């Protein structure tokens, strides 16, 4: 196996043993990028030179015996994280030339942990999408089938890990944007509790829903990255000063006697039969591992998509107001006056989906409509949160499909926003409730597309989630395949 195909913990063992160097690992990743990137198109901006320099510095540190949590490991970042001196586009024309003057908190943490940053990955524009098709920089292709989407919005980060174009990556999840592409690309993706990982430096889509999380090749790597990125940040008011446990300590503990909730509302018409079969199989696996599956009810499930498509666009309509052509980013030319500049800049700078959501959100907050839409949605959101609290009184974690279908064809849903919105039907609720969720590979379709299973737990139960996912991973023994690129 090439170095780029290994996990963080496997590479760390080799680095510690002196069997390889970060320079070799980084070279392997860059070589892989050279080989497959023209087909996958996972990256918007590659950071080749700085990655090589960082690898050299990591090797010096290793020689001095200073090995930190991610020393020398090549990691990719969704292009939604502000990186000092490195263009950060958020997949949008309006930020196509934006170079942040600062590093976001997670970027600082990765650097402090010794990571080698390989580049900035492709995404749906402003994270609005489930397929990475709304990116101004073109679509990323699913490494398992280049005619299909990788999921979204963090499609580039998921595809880069699946294609071995990095060892692990970070994404952001507002309604499923980590878990859904993780499922569609056959990797592990975790969305932590709202407030667990600092959002400072994460370009906001919907502030009350956005959360940062890792894409990794296995659950152990997920725990390693969570150890690095979690924790209270005084620069974020919604950050929670809750202790961060050592997530690796939850690996391999077993789930004997756990009660696993299976929400009856999540097995609906329209779910792909192969996905449903894989999930039924996953239920059998966790039972074999000693857990007991029980039916639970999340009665407000039907409202999740509706609530989400009011709350998220409303917040987005305000968050995206700063892109006005005045201070940074794209500005239209030949403007008659200020209003003309605003209109032309924003009309040409934003893509169709972003504009659609700004319009929806603006409408939902307008005087006369606020009570019927935004306020009502906020009230229903509280009920959705309560559903989970009541469910977790009866079970330790919840098991659901991650996505109702495997990866769909590029262009298949671009003309039908409602169909596109339904790809997040199982993931949105965790964002509305603020709880953590993880997607773990649980098999393949006959045509060889990956399928993911989602586990959900209560607030700040990432440790238990990792414990559960690790046990599942061990017992499921899903065949390790590599996309044929």
């Amino acid at each position, binding site marked *: 196996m090439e170095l780029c195909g290994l996990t963080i913990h496997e590479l760390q063992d080799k680095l510690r043993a002196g069997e390889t160097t970060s320079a070799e690992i980084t070279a392997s990743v860059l070589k892989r990028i050279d080989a497959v990137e023209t087909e996958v198109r996972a990256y918007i901006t590659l950071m080749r030179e700085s990655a090589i320099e960082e690898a050299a510095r990591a090797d010096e540190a290793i020689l001095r015996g200073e090995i930190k949590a991610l020393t020398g490991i090549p990691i990719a970042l969704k292009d939604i994280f502000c990186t000092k001196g490195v263009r950060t586009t958020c997949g949008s024309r309006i930020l196509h030339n934006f170079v*942040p003057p600062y590093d976001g908190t997670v970027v600082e943490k990765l650097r402090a942990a010794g990571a080698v940053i390989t580049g900035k990955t492709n995404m749906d524009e402003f994270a609005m999408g489930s397929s990475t098709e709304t990116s101004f920089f073109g679509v990323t292709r699913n490494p398992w089938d280049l005619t299909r989407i990788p999921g979204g919005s963090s499609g580039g980060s998921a595809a880069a890990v699946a294609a071995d174009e990095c060892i692990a990556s970070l994404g952001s999840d507002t309604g499923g944007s980590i878990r859904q592409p993780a499922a569609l690309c056959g990797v592990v993706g975790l969305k932590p509790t709202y407030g667990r990982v600092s959002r400072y430096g994460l370009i*906001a889509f919907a502030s009350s829903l956005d959360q940062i999380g890792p894409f990794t090749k296995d659950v152990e790597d997920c725990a390693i990255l969570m150890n690095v990125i979690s924790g209270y940040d005084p620069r974020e008011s*919604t950050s929670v000063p809750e202790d961060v446990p050592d997530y690796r300590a939850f690996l391999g503990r077993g789930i004997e006697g756990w009660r696993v909730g299976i929400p009856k509302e999540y097995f609906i018409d329209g779910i792909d039969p192969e996905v449903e079969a894989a999930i039924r199989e996953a239920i059998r696996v966790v039972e074999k591992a000693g857990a007991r599956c029980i039916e639970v009810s999340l009665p407000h499930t039907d409202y999740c998509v509706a609530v989400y498509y009011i709350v998220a666009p409303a917040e987005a309509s305000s968050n995206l107001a700063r892109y006005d052509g*005045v201070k940074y980013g794209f500005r239209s030319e030949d403007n008659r006056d200020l209003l003309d500049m605003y209109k032309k800049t924003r009309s040409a700078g934003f893509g169709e989906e972003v504009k659609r959501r700004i319009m929806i959100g603006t409408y939902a907050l307008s*005087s006369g409509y606020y009570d019927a839409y935004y306020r009502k949605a906020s009230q229903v959101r509280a009920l959705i949160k309560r559903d989970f609290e009541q469910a977790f009184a009866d079970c330790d974690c919840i098991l659901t499909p991650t996505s109702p279908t495997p990866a769909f064809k590029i262009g298949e849903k671009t003309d039908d926003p409602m169909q596109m919105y339904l790809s997040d039907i199982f993931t949105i609720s965790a964002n509305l409730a603020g709880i953590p969720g993880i997607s773990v590979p649980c098999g393949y379709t006959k045509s060889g597309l990956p399928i993911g299973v989602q586990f959900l737990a209560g607030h700040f139960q990432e440790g238990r989630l990792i414990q559960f996912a690790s046990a599942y991973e061990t017992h499921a023994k899903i065949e390790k395949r590599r996309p044929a690129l």
Partner: protein
Amino acid sequence: MEYEPVIGLEVHAQLLTNTKIFCGCSTKFGATPNTHTCPVCLGMPGVLPVLNKKVVEFMMKMALATHCTINGECNFARKNYFYPDLPKGYQISQYASPPAEHGWIEMEIDGGKKRIGITRIHMEEDAGKLLHDEHNPVSHVDLNRTGVPLIEIVSEPDIRGAEEAAAYLRRLHEILVYLEICDGNMEEGSFRCDANVSLRPRGTETFGTRTELKNMNSFRNVQRAIEYEIKRQAYVLDSGSAVVQETRLWDDTAGVTHSMRSKEEAHDYRYFPDPDLVPVVIDDAWIEAVLNTLPELPLEKRERFVREYQIPAYDAGVLTASRSLADYYEEVVRLSGQPKIASNWVMGDVLRFLNEDKKEIRACPIAPAALAEMIRLIQDGTISGKMAKEVSEAMYRTGKAPGAIIEEKGLVQITDEGALAGMISEIIGKNPAQTAQYREGKEKVFGFFVGQVMKATGGKANPQVINDLLKKMLAGTE
């Protein structure tokens, strides 16, 4: 028809915190454009606000000083609109749940007292400034002011005239400055006022259609603008038309208000709770702690001065115009034990010198102890009141102690009766004609003798002693 004006004021006061409301940048006025900025107040992608606790405390001080109820929990909300001086495209303000409401202030009007209700006080961030190029069609944006903390103080529509509005504004200004939470500088924009004005036929209860007046940057302009607007609305109504609900700008030079935008053009600010900030929780212990830091407020101080120092209300008003002036006066009283004399000197010479030099009391070269010492020297007869005038002026110019000045100028008063009696008998002896006139009842010549004694002593004789001696000696009893 006779109309009654109904006026409510919205005041924005910049708070004197060292740093901005949601980031660590300095709030100092007058720096090079865009130097007091950081990613947060520049509205960069990905940044988040963190509330400066001092802002909450300053808001609480004003709330307590104006008898507001402080709510246990309040939220920040986003006020969405586009303008180049607003880098995020929204202002972080407070909307549905204000931190303080239902207050009042009391003021003296036409000898009586009147209460004006305070609807609410809330916290928000200031916007930046546009600097328009005079020669080219470009504008520059200075974001130093972006994120400077403000409190907005909204009054009830309790004000009934332009003069009353100005009086209310002065009271509010005075309280803010007393609390040391706002420098009150209207020209630099740290104290700004908008006015809502409507008219109704006198004796009726329903409110008329109101206009909102903006761009009034002095107390005088607020008064003038409201006076103008009352006349304008009365004219509109008398001519059978209706007042249009709109925002109007005061034009200082022309002395008129101009329509800026109508109700139809008004912004829909799409307020909603800011998801980047958590609710502000204010418990009783915090309120108590802030309450303990509140200084005595101007009105209370004024009343205490009248009561405690037995000085006229007018004097008390002058002496409490600022906290530092009141402190100065009280220190002079403490050291001299002479409240009335101290008030005469502070209100007279001291304030006159300062006004001439446009200086603040803090910068006064005469220390309270020096002034008290001078008062003591007058009291014990060392110098006369007339001499004291000369002494105080010299103290102000040189900053020296009164004793040193008296010595330098040789100003010590002659009070030795023996020495003066000798001098007086000599003068009586030399002026037999005038002495005879006086003894015949022509008391007018008494002044002549006083003048002669003063001349002989170079003006240093104690006038009281001269009076007494002259009377006795001219009467021939001695």
